[in-house]
């Protein structure tokens, strides 16, 4: 492992292997239910697959983190506790958690199990992070995607836990774990169901002005013939305010923070995280290899500008941004 830990997504055992073989130091995954925030049909791990994958990864010196990062349902907390127990039982290196009750269970039942705080806990201030560290023994926090590099550096001067920052993949513009846009339109949310803008609510219809993408029957975007179509994630839609149509919340771009990787490393960030458990083996192999090479190059004292264009074609809708890391985003 280099100066920064490379954490990559695994939506399946095959994808986990691809990530590790491409140079990931750690991989994160979820069980096949709503206890994790990528609860897509056909995705994720059975407990047996998790167990096998942990052994496989450990044999190659890589770590496995289990995401149990949705919020437990009222009256059904046992499912989330079972996921935590499964992580402990299979020897996973850490669990990634957001819910207070699930954190408490992990702390009390498995005191030696490493606790990472999910981005869904929306802990963006030193006080919030310190609260989780003190109350639950959280060892690492995944930072909200809305902080600039300067803010991250300032934050790190005031906290004692490790930090993990997203550097590639889908971009969430609202405070995570607290966004109800998806459930307002479709009844399902990343908080409770582990999905945002779920596929069963998506339709594409050919209309006079072009193809219209809809979520829960609400038109989110329109594409002229030949124009690449995007998935109708709610906050990436085009909306009319005062008659003016625009990508009000965020352009349908995805995150590529390769250009600020050196700055994140200087700020002392422990780990960088790639989003995209639903993107497949080919995706993770390419992204992991690019960031592996970039981190190794940084550690060798080289410039990494040559890595910036490497991943441009994988971006959603073909466009990317360095997100909030540069303060102009606000």
């Amino acid at each position, binding site marked *: 492992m280099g100066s920064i830990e490379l954490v990559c997504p695994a939506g399946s055992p095959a994808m986990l292997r691809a990530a590790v073989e491409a140079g990931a130091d750690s991989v994160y995954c979820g069980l096949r239910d709503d206890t994790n925030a990528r609860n897509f049909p056909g995705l994720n791990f059975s407990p047996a697959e998790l167990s096998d994958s942990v052994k496989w990864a450990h044999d190659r010196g890589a770590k496995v983190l289990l995401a149990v990062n949705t919020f437990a349902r009222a009256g059904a907390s046992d499912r989330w506790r079972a996921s935590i127990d499964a992580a402990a039982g299979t020897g996973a290196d850490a669990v990634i958690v957001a819910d*207070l009750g699930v954190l408490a269970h992990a702390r009390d039942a498995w005191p030696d199990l490493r606790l990472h705080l999910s981005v869904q806990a929306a802990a963006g201030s030193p006080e919030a992070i*310190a609260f989780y560290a003190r109350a639950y023994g959280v060892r690492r926090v995944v930072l909200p995607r809305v902080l600039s590099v300067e803010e991250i550096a300032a934050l790190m001067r005031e906290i004692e836990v490790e930090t993990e920052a997203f550097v590639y993949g889908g971009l969430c513009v609202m405070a995570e774990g607290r966004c109800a846009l998806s459930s*307002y339109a479709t009844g399902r949310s990343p908080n409770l169901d582990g999905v945002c803008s779920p596929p069963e609510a998506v339709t594409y219809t050919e209309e006079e002005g072009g193809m219209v993408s809809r979520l829960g029957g609400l038109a989110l975007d329109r594409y002229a013939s030949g124009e690449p179509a995007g998935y109708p994630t709610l906050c990436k839609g085009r909306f009319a305010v005062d008659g003016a149509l625009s990508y009000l919340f965020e352009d349908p771009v995805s995150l590529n923070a390769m250009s600020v990787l050196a700055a994140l490393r200087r700020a002392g960030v422990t780990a960088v995280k790639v989003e995209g458990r639903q993107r497949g083996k080919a995706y993770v192999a390419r992204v992991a290899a690019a960031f592996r090479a970039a981190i190794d190059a940084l550690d060798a004292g080289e410039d990494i500008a040559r890595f910036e264009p490497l991943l441009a074609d994988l971006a959603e809708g073909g466009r990317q941004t360095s997100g909030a890391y540069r303060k102009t985003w606000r």
Partner: protein
Amino acid sequence: MTEISLQLTVGPLLFNWAPERIRDFYGRIADQAPVDRVYIGEVVCGKRAPLLDHAFSDAAERLEAAGKQVVWSGLGLPALRRDRKAIAALSADQESLIEINDVSALLERSGPFVAGPLLNVYNEAAARELMSRGCVRLCANVELSLAAVSAIAAGCPGLEIELFAFGRLPLALSGRCYHARHHGLHKDNCQFVCDRDLDGLDIRTLDGRDFLAVNGVQTLSHGVQLADIPPSELLRAGVTALRLSPHTADMVAVARGFRAFADGRIDAVELAAQARAAGPPGPFVGGYLRGVAGLQPAGAQ
């Protein structure tokens, strides 16, 4: 016939209203609204606080003089250093009951508090964690169905539970200001343009359907929640109070309507009629409480 009846509360003002409007509004609430408790304070954007603090303090005095309980509410998403200081200052007053809307306030809190609807508390285990730290009341997150609220109440004996019963639903908070973005500005030089939209700025889909509303860094529903569920059912589910979120609508009329509804003097249809006559900024929705998409219409229109 049940002896206990639902309390009514006024939630914190979400919008950037002028100080005079704020004073007038709370003056009317103090003198005329049949409500038990009023939440006061800036929860959306720390930049507004210096403009509005005096008006809020004056309002608090007026309300207390009229016999209403006043609870100060904290910011939902601290962004600047001074936001964190404001939250810490609120938290430090351990004697008074406060409303917490962000986890950062929990660090130094030992006194009693209300868990606000902007916290991500979705189940009884999480609520119990907060109770062990002094939480005495929970205003349920708007995503929760009545069934979920009921499960939380069952798992948390003694916890008072408020329900967001009227107003545009708070759906999301961001580090980015969408009012500024719409006006081609930046959060740092926003010119406080959010003060132009007293109930939020309407957002439509590209085929013209009303959908959401912008309020600075906050995104609200366009539809107005109306919890027109029979009071007996609410009480059985463990709800102890109904929260009315302030809008430019006649909130005294809304409060009177809900008081009559909670007391069993009018039914859901009449409640909707009176609330509609008060001038809400959108159609009534009620999906969340029924466990479906939030924008589904309320029962009786």
